[in-house]
């Protein structure tokens, strides 16, 4: 899957799935969706094709990373951040595997 397709997919998925949790600050949520996707999507592609790293660990790591980002940069509510990160990244990684499988 190309970089543009991966990025657009990640951004849309994160944007839509974070929206119900952070609808009051949707602009900041959209910015975070954009930046975390820009960081994670190319990195995942590189790790997938160039390393033998276990992708279950990567999946857990990106959820933790996203939850931390949402907690510190959007709203200091850890449960909301964890659940939003879990949901968005689960769908994102399924999209990633469908695209690269």
């Amino acid at each position, binding site marked *: 899957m190309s970089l543009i397709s991966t990025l657009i997919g990640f951004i849309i998925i994160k944007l839509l799935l974070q929206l119900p949790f952070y609808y009051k600050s949707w602009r900041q949520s959209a*910015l975070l969706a954009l930046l975390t996707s*820009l*960081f994670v999507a190319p990195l995942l592609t590189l790790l997938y094709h160039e390393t*033998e790293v276990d992708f279950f660990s990567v999946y857990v790591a990106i959820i933790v990373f996203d939850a931390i980002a949402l907690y510190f940069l959007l709203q200091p509510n850890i449960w909301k951040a964890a659940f939003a990160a879990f949901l968005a990244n689960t769908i994102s990684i399924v999209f990633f595997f469908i695209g*690269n*499988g």
Partner: protein
Amino acid sequence: MANLAALADAGFSIRRRTAAAEITFKGLNNVPNHKLLLVQYSYQSGDTLLKSPFISYRDTLTDGRSFVIQNGGRRWDESDRYLHFVLAKNDSTGTVTDSFTIYMKKWNYKMVVTGEKNGKLQYTLKKSKAYFNYNLIGDDNNEGNNKTIRFIFIACSLLGFVFLLLLFLKRKKSTITS
């Protein structure tokens, strides 16, 4: 949790392609009394020429021949490729005088054969890193320098990380007042 990990592993290991590697042979005309054969193309190094039940190649190589190998596999371990070569006399019996193995993963090779001495092949092996053919825009667009495109992937990721870091450093810190 273990079941979840097993499920995830089953799904996450599918078709994890790696960089294709290319090998080129030059100077085979320098061994006129011998022929170089690619006799096996295996996943694991433990497979030997004699006992392996799945010899998939037995191909006499010609000068200037090149082929691409390791172009993906369903799993990472299937992308490991060991090429087993033998040097055989160019007579009716075809006695094997030398054998060697090359590990192809992640590397492009250029084998330059300079001659033969006491039945052993004299050659130099130049290797260069093989890059995965990442795509920027179209899924079927494999044009462009793979090294540059890989750099763009790394740059994008770093850019995202740096912006997140800047946001983190410039975030509004709540102060506790008593």
